């Protein structure tokens, strides 16, 4: 896998016109390598069912990671997304179950649940953003705090156990996860739509350029008359909205939320962003890279499930290794190019 990429890199580099393409190509090549590996390990890997499983699973982390791309590009970090997802799922389930008595288990109930999710997501994002900008507290600390708060709230709501969605509503809501349009699962379509919207917002609007500017140098951005606090807060709001969208397609999958929902999703989302080529210190972000990063993370897990060649106890080690190698290849190329 590595040798293929090493050889590929210089040829692309010399054809100067493709510079920008090449940057985006790094993670993509790693993904292709991973797909080849998967196919070699087990032919079932390329079956339609398996591929659809991979993309559908990647949708949760992927959608959240699109939001994280904004936050990280603008020099922030959000550790609360996993807990936030669990909390919003829990709140949606409680409210929808409560509404069954008055509204019945119909589409209205589900729509109100979705509305609640969006409101909570935007609200939670705004809290993270405002407290870190107006309160002048490091985002790391603020979101570490809210991470604990949301996690406890969902545990409290569930009495330490599991919240389960009413079975009649499940029937109505189920197609949002299990349905498809022309064979493409709905979560994948939502993921794609969120990615396109994110791409446009980050790369084609003044708002996106401000994110880049703030992430590169906050002081300079401030002197350039950018409302730094407002833009940064908005990135957290976008993150919150993304979490809410991910939750909306997550809840119908198993119809439950508990204290173990969304554990470590924040790290997976951040990993997807970084694998995709966004810089952790901010100033540069790439939505499509993030999308590929999320798919890569899911694919690694899938491949490990398709083989019994590697001891189960070493799964984490293999995952860690592949992530580091993937990022190394990409950064290695980037550095060499800069030095020339």
């Amino acid at each position: 896998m590595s040798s293929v990429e090493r050889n590929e890199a210089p040829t692309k580099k010399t054809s100067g016109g493709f510079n920008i393409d090449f940057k985006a190509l790094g993670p993509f090549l790693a993904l292709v390598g991973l797909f080849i590996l998967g196919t070699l390990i087990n032919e079932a890997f390329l079956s339609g069912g398996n591929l659809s499983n991979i993309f559908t699973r990647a949708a949760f982390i992927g959608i959240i990671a699109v939001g994280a791309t904004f936050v990280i590009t603008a020099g922030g970090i959000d550790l609360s997304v996993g807990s936030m997802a669990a909390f919003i799922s829990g709140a949606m389930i409680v409210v929808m179950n409560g509404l069954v008595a008055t509204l019945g288990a119909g589409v209205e109930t589900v729509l109100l649940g979705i509305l609640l999710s969006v409101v909570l997501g935007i609200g939670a994002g705004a809290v993270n953003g405002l407290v870190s900008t107006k309160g002048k507290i490091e985002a790391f600390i603020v979101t570490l705090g809210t991470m604990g708060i949301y996690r406890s709230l969902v545990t409290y709501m569930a009495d330490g156990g599991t919240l389960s969605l009413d079975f009649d509503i499940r029937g109505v809501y189920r197609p949002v996860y299990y349905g498809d349009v022309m064979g493409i699962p709905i979560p994948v379509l939502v993921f794609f739509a969120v990615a396109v919207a994110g791409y446009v917002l980050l790369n084609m609007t003044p708002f996106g350029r401000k994110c880049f500017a703030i992430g590169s140098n906050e002081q300079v951005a401030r002197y350039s008359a950018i409302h730094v606090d407002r833009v940064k807060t908005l990135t957290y709001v976008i993150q919150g909205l993304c979490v809410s969208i991910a939750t909306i397609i997550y809840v119908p999958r198993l119809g439950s939320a508990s204290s173990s929902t969304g554990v470590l999703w924040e790290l997976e989302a951040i990993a997807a962003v970084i694998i995709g080529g966004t810089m952790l210190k901010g100033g540069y972000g790439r939505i499509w890279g993030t999308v590929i990063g999320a798919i890569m993370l899911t694919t690694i897990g899938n491949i490990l499930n398709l083989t019994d060649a590697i001891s189960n106890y070493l799964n984490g080690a293999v995952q860690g290794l592949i992530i580091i190698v993937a990022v190394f290849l990409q950064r290695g190329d980037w550095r060499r190019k800069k030095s020339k």
Partner: protein
Amino acid sequence: MKRFAKYLGAACALSLSLASVGAMAQEKVKIGVSIPAATHGWAGGLNWHAEQAEKRIEATYPNIDVIVVSANGATEQANDLEDLVSVQNIDALVVLPFESDPLTVPVQQVKKAGKFVTVVDRGLSLPGIEDVYVAGNNPQLGRVSGEYIRERLNDEGKIVVLRGIPTTVDTERVDAFVASLEGSNIEVLDMKHANWNRDDGYEVMQDFLSRFPEIDAVWAQDDDIALGVIEAVKQADRTDEMFIVGGAGMKDIIKRVMDGDKLTPIDVLYPPAMIATAMELTALKFASGVPVEGRYILGATVVTQENAKNFYFPDSPF
């Protein structure tokens, strides 16, 4: 107004001193309970049952005070134990260790301080520390699950196994399960860790389904995993092909067994209510002085459609 405040202050001081005198007069027995926080479904049930037992014991025996603390990890639990002894000055400890090895010495310290010690579920690494030991039976859980699958499949078939979080509990169950299948023609296609978690259970099962065209039975070992497995099997439209054996006794699964769901014909108990058993036994020691010291191993009862209603607790969160 000022005078009123003065009176109020005096009254408060008086009542406070009275209260402390009262407490001195009637020295309460304090039982400290240290358990893992509700980080997964089973532990959630554990916390719920501990809370229920606390209310019950304090109502039944007015001279016993129960203090329940929960920890997020072995280190935190060791700190909890120190606090229970030095700050709360407990007379007895009921502990469900996060992990056996790291907590053996901290629990030993509590014992050395002269406290009555009850250990639940996960045994300590050194013998002779605890006065009472209450546990479920992990090897039996694995064995009865294996025996059931063997019988249902007439000693022949293909099965997959979803394991828990890599720990001794998981290893004990799996080893006994594998041993119980020895001598049959049942082929274990693969075993993967699903970490006692619904989402992982769902994903691992999806991958098993795309990998193996023929699966006769699934041993999910745990009811949270089983719920994820059920959704994956339904999604793949292969519900007629296989059955699923879970474990623990979660109300959702017990309900399915009770309703005669073909996908989940049985469940094997590993009840989180064992913490209540341990707490009641410890309370009994102080309330009545009857001998309770010893080892109590709760059976891994098989729940079938016939007896399911005895194990169905709709109010429990688990």
